């Protein structure tokens, strides 16, 4: 995933690289994901969230649909 100054530079990057425009995530949403994934990474019990847990975490911050489902085999409708 890449960081952009604005939606405009995202669109220009997608056009230049002929990549479909995919979902955008805000700084606050990304911080939430960073804390869930990594706040306990230096501890004994740390682990990566399981697929169902991931779906719940994403949905909790408004990231829903098959694009955000690690078990999905189709996701275009979510973009």
């Amino acid at each position: 995933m890449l960081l952009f100054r604005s939606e405009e530079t995202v669109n220009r990057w997608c056009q230049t690289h002929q990549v479909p425009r995919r979902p955008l995530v805000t700084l606050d949403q990304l911080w939430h994901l960073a804390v869930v994934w990594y706040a306990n990474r230096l501890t004994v019990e740390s682990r990566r969230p399981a697929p169902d847990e991931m779906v719940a975490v994403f949905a909790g911050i408004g990231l829903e649909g098959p694009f955000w489902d690690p078990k999905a085999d189709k996701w275009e409708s979510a973009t």
Partner: protein
Amino acid sequence: MQTSTVMHPDFDTAVKLTIYTFIAETAAAPSSAEVAEKVGASPAEVEAAFGRLHVKRLLVPEPGDPSRIRMAPPFSGVATPFSVEVRGMRYYANCAWDALGIPAALRADAVILAADGFSGEPLTLEVKGNRPVPRECVVHFAVPAARWWEDIIYT
């Protein structure tokens, strides 16, 4: 009784904690030999643990060199465009998500030196008091979640 070929799951935990503690303290990823010395095992046993931690998606060995670590998310074992300064140390992250993950893991303030993905213009983020300092930016996920680990280095 533990043998040299069948390692207890606690061994993998010890290896994992050794890796992350080493990176937190030095801002560099340890080799299998460095981890082996700290956990009292052979480099081959540690490399086997690297492989099991990779299966759990907690580690990515360097492609073609199982003695080295490419990623111990959120940390990168190599320099990347995401530089994260914490307490006078410079760490590298694998992506924007991981760049925020480093201050989350270290529970510290941070300054993240990155760049706009299209223009390359510098884009600095700051984490202060357990939250990001607001600034205009967005993150574009080009790869769906189901494919993130097909090529995690690209993702």
